[in-house]
Each structure stands twice: as C-alpha cells, then as structure tokens.
C-alpha cells in the first residue's frame, strides 16, 4: 500500500483511514496532481468536510454547486466552475483532497 506523508492510501489515492487527514496531506495530494490550492479550493474542501461530518457521505453535485453559489456568487455555482478547480471532477478529486471516501455508483 502506498502512503502520503505516512498516511495510508488505497490504489486510487484515497485515504484508508479518514481520521488521518491533515491540511498538509491535502496540499501534498494537490501538489502531486499539479493543482495549486487557492482559497476557493479550500472553501470547497471545507464544505465537503463539513457536509461529510454531518451526513457521512459526499454532497450531491447539485447540493455542492448550490452551496458554492451562496458562498462565491451565482456565476460560480455550477459544475463547470468546479471542474476548473478540480480537473478530475469535484466528486473524485475534491473528495480525495478533502479526505472523504470515493463516491461510488453509476456516477
């Protein structure tokens, strides 16, 4: 098994133990993906983590875009914008940086 800063990750790079998450791990994951974490990235990551803490699942795309629209303005409340932040997808890349499990299903 591979690890990031000592924390074990699965074959797709998601944390095995979600409680291992630190900001430094998120930064390292982003660096490995050639992404510079901006304030907007952190806003999304923090929202993902808060939502997960309450519901034990990542938010639906529409729930996430609505929340982002409220925080950052309507023009940014869409999945196109989220893809500019997370080129591999807000669900898969965003969740990974935020230390959430990978969403599964027909998605």
């Amino acid at each position, binding site marked *: 098994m591979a690890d990031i800063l000592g924390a074990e990750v699965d*074959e*797709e*790079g998601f944390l095995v133990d979600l409680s291992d998450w630190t900001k430094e791990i998120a930064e390292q994951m982003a660096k490995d993906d050639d992404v510079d974490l901006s304030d907007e990235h952190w806003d999304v990551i923090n929202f993902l983590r808060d939502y997960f803490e309450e*519901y*034990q*699942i990542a*938010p*639906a*795309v*529409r*729930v996430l875009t*609505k929340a982002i629209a409220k925080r950052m303005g309507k023009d940014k409340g869409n*999945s*196109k914008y989220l893809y500019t932040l997370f080129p591999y997808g807000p*669900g*898969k890349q965003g969740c990974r940086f935020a230390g959430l499990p990978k*969403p*599964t*299903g*027909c*998605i």
Partner: protein
Amino acid sequence: MAKEFDIPVLPTYLEIPELKEGIMDGEGPFKSVQEFQNPLGFPGKKVDNWQQVAIDKIGELKSKYRSVQVFLDSCVKCGACTDKCHYFLGSSDPKNMPVARQDLFRSVYRRHFTFAGKYFPKLVGAKELDDDMLDDWYNYFHQCSQCRRCSVFCPYGIDTAEISMAAREVLDAVGIGQKYCNQILGKALTIGNNLGLPEPALRDTLLDLEEEIEEETGGVAVKYPLDQKGAEILLITPSADFFAEPHIDGLIGYGKVFHQDGVSWTLSSYASEGANFGMFIGSYDVMRKAALRIRKAALDLEVSRVMVGECGHAWRVAYSFWNTLSGVGAGATDEFAQKLQDQLDHRYPQPQHIIEYTHDLIQRGKLAFDKSANDDRTVTFHDSCNVARATNMGGIPDGQFILPRDVIKAVCNNYVDMERSTIKEVTFCCGGGGGLLTDDLMEIRVKGAVPRMQALKVVEKDNGVNTLAAICAICKSQFSKVLPKFDFDPYMIVSVHQLVSEAIIMDKPQTDTDDVTSVETSET
C-alpha cells in the same frame, strides 16, 4: 494510477480493425478485498484449492442454468459475432471478439465436462484452468459490458453476457471479485443504494431540489416525497439521479410530470436504488436480495404501483426478473410475493417504466408542452443495451424503441436518429455498462465508446446534432466522461426527462395531498 493510452481517432466509417494481439492484456480492474467480499458470501481472497472450487462451480452453473450449457455446446465458430463487439472494434484485441471471450470459458468447460475434452483435449481446444487462464478470465470478462449485441447476430442465439456473468460468478466463488461492483453491492444491501446515501442525506438532497424547482418555476411546489405511506406510486430510480449530473435534471422531469398528473407518489429510503449490480456479477442470490428490498418497501408503504426511473439494467431486472424474484408482476409463489401481487393494481403494468407513464399521459393529452423551449437542441437518442435487447415498453412490438422517441418528439422539434446499424436492437453500448463504469477501466471504456462516438460524429456533421439523450444512469455518466475525449461537449448528454422538464407547461393548481400520511416519525 491508470496506465496511459492513446485516444483512438474516430474513423469516417466503422471498419473491422487490424488485429493487435494482446493490446488489452493486463491485470483487469481493481480487485475486491475481504471487507467487500465476505458480506456477499464470497471468500475474501483467492482460496487455496481454487481450481477445484472453480470446476465445481462451473459444474453447478451448467446444471442450474441450462442456457449456459447450451451456449457452451452449440458454438460452430461461424464468425458472425467477431466484428459485432464495441470493445473489439475499439481495441483491436482479438480476445475481445465475442467468440474468443466465450472460448476462455468454453475451453475449460470442454476439458472438464466433455468426453472429447477429457481424453483428446488438443483436438477440441480444451484447456486447463491454470493461473494464466484465470488471469485472462478476470481481465477479459471485465472487458465485456454484457450488452448482448453479439447475440443478435449469432445464428444460434448464444448470449455472451450470460457466459460473462457465469465467469464472474466463478471468479467470485474462488475469492477474486471486482472492487467496483462488490463494494457497491455492499452499500446497496445495507444502506439501500449504490452510493451509500443515508436517509438524512437523501431527505435533505430532495428538499434542496424542491427549493430549486420552486425558484426556477416561479413558485410551483413540485414535491419529492420520501417514505410516504399510502402513496399510489413507488418510484425506484438509480441513486445517481439524486447525486450526479446530468441525471438530476431527469429526476426534476419525473417530479414535474407527477405533479402535472396530480398522482401521489413516493421514493423509499429503504430501497432507494434501481440499479441492481447483482446481475452484473451473475449472482442470482445477490440480485434477489437487492430486489427484495424493493418488495419490502412496496409492502411497507402500501403502494399500488411500482415504477422504474431511467436506468437500463434496472429495467431489465424489473421487466424480466422481478415477477419471480419479488412478486412485482405475477409468478412468484411465496407468501410475501403473493401479498404484493394482491396489493398491486393490475390495471397498470407492474412494474411500469417512467417513459411508459409519461408516454401514456402525453397520449391522453394530460400534459402540455412548449416545444420551442428545446429549439436550441437537435436531439438524437442512444438506445441503452439492456432496455433495447432485454425488455419492452408499452406492450407493443418494438415499444422500447418507439416510446422514448415518441416522448422526445413530443417535447422537441428537432430529432434525428443515428445510423440504423448502430441503434435499436443493434445499438452499440456506451462502453461503460455491465460493471465497467470505474476509473480503473478507463482505457477499455474510451476504446469501447468508439462505435457510438463515430455514429454520433456523423449526425453532428450532417444534421447538426448537439444533444444526446439517454435513459440509463450508466450511459449518462459514461458519456459525460468520454464525450470530451472525442471533441464533443460533455454537457450534450441529457436525460430524456430533462427534455420533458424543459418543455413541460406547469399549469396545474397546487394539489391536495391529505390522503397520504408520512410514516416518518417526527424529528426528535
């Protein structure tokens, strides 16, 4: 990380590719682990006496499913299937020819279960199930989306999907499962859906959606009832409809149609999944367990109709198997199945597809549309494999092709079909079906999409098509991912009910829902 590969260049015409042996060799998708295997009743890792277990399992399957034995015995190697598989056409790997895929299984079957294979194996192509063969099984039976296009062309009607399901069942029996399918099944059987979306998250997601629609429509209160006891219709839809784009716009469409009809309906938090991956892994037991959650929800909620949303293989399982699996329809004989059969209103099809329902309302003039709302679109329809080749709609011949197109044409002015040899009963798979919709299989997903993408490119050029509509959650997700690889707009893929949603005129007065009561206890 996934291995690098070249994105294929779309040909002007679909041609049989020059063979590239071994191009898709590999280790296959990520393997499942004990945590996901054991709850489904499979060993957590490759068992020590795996060869014996595998042969025993093949023996069991050939007796249990006569079809499997007939398919294994009857191939005459005529070659009709060889160029019909999208994965072969897209990858050029000869092991992706349907007959070659079947032969991975057939050669082992011959060695152990036929006289000639036992005594003269080399003469009849019989082979031992060794480690290499097992690896090939895992790799190449996860390069089959069980779409059954090849079986349409087979003069003997050999169904490769069934052989592929049997192979995956044997693999699970020896402890080699696929992570994607088996992890998802664990969630479906414990939480109630493939995403693992618990009830509070589902409830809040639906509330959010109600708010959004009210805003968008200027005050129409379209509701998404959850666990409403006594509702008329229980809607079983893929959980991707709650979670992903473009799926959710289809869910908005369903809600608007229910609202305009004024019917009472509900979703279930216990059975919040239409997709049944039990079929993909070939396990009747697991498939039945998933189906029984739906039966329990239908009985508990006392609904009189069960309806299925836009999900390809859900409709196959519902249409073809629910009757004997769970008693939605007729045929199952156990007590609870009979209870459900008595409870359901047989003036309606049981189960009914959401397309059948909307189509019926359109026929009866119950819905009004402003078709110009879709005038920026020229639409084509992708027939999803399971709907096209394993089901029907509307009880009329070819209804599964006619009804979705009728619905689209009722809400859009501009519609064209793709080339005839790529649609309807000979439709090409999206490339992501059958449990292959996972990032670790991206190479085969992209290559397998080539035939569909080629047909789409033609209508884009010739007819200005800018919208691809589908009625399957897997197709929608797969297209969102692969369209941009072939220079299409990833947002051109939509649900059929998204088109309905955009054109429907919401003129119905707010309905009274006093006759239904919530089974939910109030929040404490």
